[in-house]
């Protein structure tokens, strides 16, 4: 039977640190994807994700039960990404082929166009200012709710909503100017 997060955490704190592996297993995808979409230099994503989990482990005793664990972990990951971005401006490395999943039954030509389009969108996402990018990443990629985002980012809901509105408009404007140039 699967143990609930809170039980795992309490036992970890009491010294059964091997149980932390289970927590890593549960939340690695979320944390990994937040970092993947926030940090331009993909070579560093793995190291940063590991570092985030070590931070989570170190501050386990400060975990507040009122939050969902995913929200709390996402908060630590986000803050760490901000720190890293502030410390050094990562060089912009073009995003490699991201998905290894084959699209439905499209013709190769369609597949190529779709791939191209996805890369454009991800590129433009990377060029958004951090505070807008994180919202798109959390909501559209990782499926967090507005309430969870407001907890992760420590901002009131109204600001989150407003910022999300502007983030989407920015992304759309960048892409539609490309559409005029015939890329999209």
């Amino acid at each position: 039977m699967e143990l609930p997060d809170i039980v795992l955490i309490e036992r970890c704190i009491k010294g059964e640190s091997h149980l932390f592996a289970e927590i890593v297993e549960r939340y690695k995808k979320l944390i990994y994807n937040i970092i993947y979409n926030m940090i331009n230099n993909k070579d560093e994503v793995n190291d940063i994700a590991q570092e985030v989990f070590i931070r989570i482990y170190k501050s386990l005793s400060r975990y507040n039960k009122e939050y969902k664990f995913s929200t709390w972990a996402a908060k630590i990951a986000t803050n760490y990404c901000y720190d890293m971005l502030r410390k050094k401006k990562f060089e912009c490395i073009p995003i490699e082929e991201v998905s290894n999943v084959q699209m439905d039954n499209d013709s190769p030509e369609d597949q190529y166009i779709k791939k191209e389009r996805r890369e454009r969108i991800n590129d433009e996402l990377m060029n958004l200012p951090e505070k807008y990018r994180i919202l798109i990443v959390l909501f559209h990629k990782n499926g967090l709710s507005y309430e969870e985002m407001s907890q992760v980012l420590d901002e009131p809901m109204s600001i989150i909503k407003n910022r999300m509105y502007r983030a989407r408009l920015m992304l759309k404007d960048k892409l539609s100017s490309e559409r005029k140039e015939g890329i999209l």
Partner: protein
Amino acid sequence: MSCEPFEILMMKHMDGDITDIEYKKLKKHIDECSTCKNEFDTFENICYELKEPLIDPPLAFETEVMKKLENLNLYNKKLKEKRILAAYFISSMLFSILAICIAVIYKEHVYNFMIYINIPLGFASNIYGLLERIAVFFDIASTFIFYLNSIFVDMLYLLIGLVSIIFMSKIYESAQVAKVRKNSKKTV
């Protein structure tokens, strides 16, 4: 006609909380307004593409994290051991100094006790002599300190004043540094 309300509807659509009536309204407007249709299509593309499957972390991810944590714990343990050793060393030093002091103060009793438990006389006198010498040394040291104190008593106040000035200026300096750091963070 202003398109702004429809932009808000598009946002609601992306948030996934648009009502059926609102959606019909939006669809109707899109059929009539090409600008909004373009916009809507771009948004739909964005949302669709962003929903791509999430990246899978490498298989060995947990193992690597746990390995790092283990090293960390090991490191903590070593540090703790070192600290315990240091504490042990310092306390044993303090204890032996204290024991010597007490022995010096009660040297007659120590001597009598040694005679009482049949320790050879020569050895006991040696110990007594050693304690005597330490006592003399203490005496000399304390007289010396008193002597120095009487000479430098005026200098002492001067010294205290100087030290406090240095201390205050250090505090001021570090406050300044903190301020500059804060400002530079803000500008970044």
